């Protein structure tokens, strides 16, 4: 006899948070992010019907179809998910929004909408599954690709990358984090923190493209991520099939983890004195890490003082989408009163 599945506080099993099987490449970092989203939703006892999933266009943007099948979702337009999400959340601010974007979707075609969403502080966990390459169109550089990087299709990249986290900080985002897709525990923790944030929580997840950008010299490759990741927080690793558990270690300590293929990743826990409340420090650390060729991960910046757009709009408790008709249509008397002023 099968064991009954373990249920969480809202009576759901982990399977209740699953969705259609992924059509992305095997081993794609995006799949592990989807898996962690399922885990997080389960652990946080979220009701799927209280969540909306939003995305733009690209490999990453397909992935909302692969988690939380009982949530409404919208796979929208390339680079335009922020505006769609803004409208949806002004219409219904009672739902939690999970946005999935990619480096092309956010860093190129959608950079404007991304930054304006941050200005407005729309309440959404905004995940950028960042692999520095256009997968669906077979391997062009994206705006986050490294300077001097070589790709079979695209040749050598002559331009410096756009750093999603720096852009987010410059736009006034109150929650800026970076994680490595292969680091399941860290991915989970930053998503959990992001879900509790009152505005836009930007999570830049380095998510290697196994098909088009896994050259060892790319900062978005597995090999690079494993060797160069410099974590600001405790961390784990979750390859496509099997989870690797990291033994507990103290603040500021290093941990070397051996992975399935024998490669090694050096982890460093957040220094005890790192204080994520200073945006200048966050920018400096990102710059320093960049110069050192390191991948800085963790929650880089956190400031919950700014209200969300819905809060700043002073929206009523009942979402606009659920207002009764007699609230939506003013009374007959108001119309005649108002028109009297035009006679």
């Amino acid at each position: 006899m099968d064991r009954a599945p373990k249920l969480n506080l809202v009576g759901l099993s982990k399977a209740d948070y699953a969705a259609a099987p992924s059509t992305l490449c095997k081993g794609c970092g995006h799949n592990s992010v989807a898996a962690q989203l399922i885990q997080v939703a389960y652990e946080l006892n979220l009701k799927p019907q209280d969540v909306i999933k939003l995305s733009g266009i690209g490999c990453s943007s397909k992935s909302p179809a692969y988690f939380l099948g009982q949530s409404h979702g919208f796979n929208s337009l390339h680079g335009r998910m922020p505006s769609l999400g803004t409208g949806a959340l002004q219409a219904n601010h009672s739902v939690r929004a999970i946005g999935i974007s990619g480096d092309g979707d956010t860093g190129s075609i959608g950079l404007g909408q991304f930054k304006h969403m941050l200005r407005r502080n729309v309440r959404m966990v905004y995940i950028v599954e960042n692999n520095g390459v256009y997968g669906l169109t077979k391997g062009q550089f994206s705006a986050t690709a490294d300077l001097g990087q070589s790709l079979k299709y695209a040749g050598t990249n002559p331009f410096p990358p756009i750093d999603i986290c720096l852009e987010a900080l410059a736009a006034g985002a109150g929650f800026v984090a970076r994680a490595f897709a292969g680091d399941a525990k860290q991915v989970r923790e930053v998503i959990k923190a992001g879900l509790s944030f009152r505005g836009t929580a930007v999570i830049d997840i380095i998510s290697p493209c196994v098909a088009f950008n896994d050259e060892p010299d790319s900062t978005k490759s597995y090999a690079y991520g494993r060797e160069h990741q410099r974590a600001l927080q405790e961390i784990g690793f979750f390859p496509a099939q099997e989870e690797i558990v990291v033994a507990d270690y103290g603040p500021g300590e290093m941990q070397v983890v051996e992975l399935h293929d024998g490669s090694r990743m050096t982890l460093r826990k957040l220094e005890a004195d790192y204080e994520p409340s200073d945006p200048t420090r966050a920018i400096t650390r990102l710059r320093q890490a960049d110069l050192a060729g390191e991948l800085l991960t963790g929650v880089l910046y956190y400031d919950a003082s700014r209200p969300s757009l819905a809060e700043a709009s002073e929206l009523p408790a009942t979402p606009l989408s659920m207002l009764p008709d007699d609230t939506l249509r003013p009374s007959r008397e108001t119309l005649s009163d108002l028109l009297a002023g035009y006679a």
Partner: protein
Amino acid sequence: MAIDTLVRPDAGAQAGAKVNDFSIAVATANGTGSQTANLTLLRSFFKMGIPVHGKNIFPSNIQGQPTWYHIRVSKDGFVARRPPELLVAFNRDTMHQDVAMLEAGGVCVYNSDLRLNEGRSDLTYYPVPVKELLAGVDVKGKIKEYIANMTYVGVVAHLLGVPLDVIEGALEHHFGKRQKLVDSNFEVVRLAYDWAVANVAKADPYRVEPMNATEGLILMTGNEAGALGAVYGGVSVSGWYPITPSTSFIDALRDFLAKLRHDEDGRPTYSVVQAEDELAAIGMVVGAGWAGARALTATSGPGLSLMAEFLSLAYYAEVPAVVWDIQRVGPSTGLPTRTSQGDVGFAYTIGHGDTKHVLLFPSSIEECFEFGYLAHDLADTLQTPVLVLSDLDLGMNNWMGKPFDYPERPLQRGKVLSAEEVAALGDWGRYKDVDGDGIAYRTLPGNPNPAAAWFGRGTGHDEMARYSESPTDWEQNMARLARKFDTARTLVPGPAIEEEPGAQLAIVAYGTTRYAIEEARAQLAAAGVATSFMRVRALPIGDEVRDFVARHEDLVLIEMNRDAQLTAILRDELPEFAARIRPIAHLDGMPLTAAWVLERLMPFLPEEARRLMEGA
């Protein structure tokens, strides 16, 4: 000779009095506050019970460029543009071209500080010594400049016979409770009026007399009327980006929402977000529509171009959205402050692939209000974008109209399933055509039934909203969307038809060209030439439009664009009648005049009718 003070009593005086039937053009510089003076004149005529309409012919500029305001005063209620008989020449830069435009017998009231050469002897001149008149007024600098225009209000009031208390009433209407402004402006009006009474001998035939033809009517812009209609249609979310001539639509929307839409705690039951561009503006609208709130944006041609992408998505993912396109002249930036009907073809199929959209064509403030709420009913019912194609002329100018009827029909929210309904249905599918009308059932985010969820997408999908590249799924879905469009034909407003027995010609039009056409038809009728008229009010067309075309062998379709865009659409939809629909298409940025319509209609009239007109 000091021409500044010369008054010629001869020209025009011999003609009989022309009462309540003329046009005035006021020429000033942009940004000098002339709008207040012009609206004061407009409202004064309106308050005297005389049918009136004002058109702002303005430059794409903030300050200093020439601007004109045309006021049509018509005892017969005609409100189309008509070349002016009276000119108020208060702009040095355009003075000579303005005077040159007047027909013989015209009247020129001018600022004599500007040294106009009264070269034409076939006009009546009234110089106004503005500086001298303002010398005794106790205001300084910029304000003096603003109220200087009130001098022509006073002189024109005297010349035409507008009582001063009517002017004061109009100023009170304009400034509301700001009594100081009423007083300072009225002081100048009175000064100029008194000066004119003492110094100006009336030497032209134009004057006004009180009527009661505006009793019970209102005066409002189309943008205000449309925004108000949307508020009574329950609009709750707007994303927008400023663009002339649609900005005043959103300004009005925000004003009306602030007045009318609050909960018990005083919280706004709406959200208006100024977007970073039109891509985001329509994105917010589509997002809100998907989430279940009534949402709109207002824009004009260049903005509509940017919205193509989201409108294609909203058509295919079947999301309600309302777009007010206040048409200006394109292509490209075009003439940003001039009117047109140039977006019809683009709007009808906006988006790549096989897209078709519901369009509404308001022609009056009453229709702006009605379509204001109807657009949301249609968008919700059909789960698709609805585009309301207004124009600059209607949107930004003041028009008379009947006070709007309160919408009697409850909000039509369409096929939205509750949690209980989802449970009762069992296996519902977002894109299943259960009722055979092409309209499937939808659920909204936040629906507490976990089975209510569906995944919206612009990619190929099956009836269950699952990703699908199946040729059958694609074709069946697109066929259903075409079926839905056929359902739309039965739901959109039908045409306004005036069919005359023995009509020699049938005229088809849409939107604001109606006013010049109606005036031209009246002149034809007066000469004994009967015409029929169909004003198309929406696309896609339904049976009424088709039957009208089928009943008339001789049709002309008048529209304000170069390429006869609606003509092309009707010919395409009614191929069997394509040859009988003949276009009169024209666009120069100015609203049509009856004289132009008549001239262009002549070649289409039968020989006998032409003779009648030539005799008239």
